[in-house]
């Protein structure tokens, strides 16, 4: 029983990170109808930036928030420079754009910081959380920060003017323009926020997976699985999907014979395929109620 609850809690803590990545992916998908394959690399680069700041002697939390701000600006810049010109281009052009972005960021990180694995600090420590052996303080911190982030995002989208405008621009761009919303900037803002959320996910998972240019590859695949499971049109679904994938991954690795750590990743891919076959809209995929 202890093993079981241990696995569930560990699943929730990594699930929190998947939830963040899924949320970032869904945010951009909602804005431009494309999956951002470079989301993980953007998060990885942000994590390296924060690491570099700490190497220069900046304290953890200062580096943490500075990196979030920088990532936000960088996300907007990427949209303005690379994807705004591609807005009306065919899907494949956009896919090529994402792959280009992926390799550019990945290689730049390797060039600047090289490919050796680095330790990344945690502000939460790694002692047992509240004296229990179930999870560590860092895992608890991951869950805590993610929950704070989700609550903040909920209030932003539900109760602020800009949040409302962003939702309107994502759901019906033409109508949004007709009430005076600058939809182009709403898309850029979505990129900025996705990039900032990814940065948080990267900085939280880095102490677990260690810092190196390919650290987010697996994480992003779980993030995609979470987004597909929850429904690409639903931010709430992405979050729930993230936690579910985290738990499922851990339980499968522990209890299904022969899966273990090596086969955990294919499980995410199998999950993507099963969801697409059985329920393509995902668990929370949009069921629009419409009467004409």
């Amino acid at each position, binding site marked *: 029983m202890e093993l079981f609850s241990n696995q569930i809690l560990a699943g929730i803590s990594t699930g929190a990170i998947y939830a963040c990545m899924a949320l970032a992916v869904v945010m951009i998908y909602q804005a431009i109808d494309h999956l951002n394959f470079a989301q993980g690399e953007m998060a990885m680069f942000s994590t390296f930036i924060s690491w570099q700041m700490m190497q220069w002697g900046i304290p953890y939390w200062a580096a943490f928030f500075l990196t979030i701000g920088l990532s936000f600006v960088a996300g907007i810049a990427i949209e303005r420079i690379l994807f705004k010109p591609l807005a009306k281009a065919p899907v494949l052009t956009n896919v090529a754009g994402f792959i280009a972005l992926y390799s550019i960021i990945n290689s730049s990180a390797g060039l600047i910081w090289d490919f050796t694995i680095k330790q990344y600090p945690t502000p939460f420590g790694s002692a047992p959380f509240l004296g229990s052996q179930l999870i560590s303080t860092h895992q608890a911190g991951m869950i805590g920060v993610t929950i704070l982030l989700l609550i903040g995002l909920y209030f932003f989208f539900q109760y602020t003017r800009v949040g*409302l405008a962003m939702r309107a621009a994502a759901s019906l761009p033409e109508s949004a323009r*007709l009430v*005076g*919303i600058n939809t182009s900037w709403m898309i850029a803002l979505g990129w900025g926020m996705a990039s900032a959320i990814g940065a948080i996910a990267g900085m939280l998972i880095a102490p677990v997976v260690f810092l190196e240019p390919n650290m987010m590859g697996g994480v992003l695949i779980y993030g995609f699985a979470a987004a597909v499971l929850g429904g690409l049109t639903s931010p709430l679904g992405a979050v729930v999907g993230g936690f579910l994938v985290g738990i499922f991954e851990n339980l499968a690795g522990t209890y299904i014979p022969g899966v273990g750590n090596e086969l955990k990743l294919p499980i995410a891919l199998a999950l993507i395929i099963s969801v697409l076959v059985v329920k393509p809209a995902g668990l929370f995929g949009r069921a*629009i109620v419409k*009467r004409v």
Partner: protein
Amino acid sequence: MTTLLNVRDLRAYYGQVQALHGLSFSLNEGSLTTLLGANGAGKTTTLRAICNMVRSTGAIEFEGAPLTSRSTENIVRLGIAHVPQGRGTFTTMTVEENLQLGAITRRDKAGIVSDIERMYAYFPVLKQRYTQQAGTLSGGEQQMLAVARALMLRPRLMLLDEPSFGLAPLVVRDLFKILGKINREEKVSILVVEQNAQLALELADQAYVIETGRIVMSGAAQEIANDENVRKSYLGY
């Protein structure tokens, strides 16, 4: 009377296809003008061209300022509220959120709150359903919501694209009554595009008739309604 909207030699294109062939008309401050014509005559295109949602050439002036180089959202910000064909309702959001979106360019919080109450007074059915998802409203209710959303901008000019489309005749009568009231009481000039010519001519003071992208007839709404030849050749009733 001052001219609020002045359109000169408007030509509009969908790809290679030309939809408007040098259309000119004007709308006076405070007037309720209707644009009539058969299917495919270019009525919707004219409204879309005013808001720069279709490629066009020619001159469009609002209060003397040219609109042609402005983006759709900047034209809206000048005080032109456009209720598009199909109403443009944000179906996944609540009725109240739709109204708030109408006022998204405004900063006066107190004014927005009191305007929402004013809209509920015009359209009591919206008040009953303010937390409901807008997509679950009936067609008539959605049209009322669309008009209310447009009014939330506190527009100088409201463009309405076939407000009667798909609605029961009684609902249309109610709606048109409210439009007349809005025009008089709120001093909002209205340009309404309609296929239901009879009803539109009852409501409007000025009318233009479009055929294949050109204005073929213009004048006081009453005169056009009384001219049997015009009615038979262009309006079909």
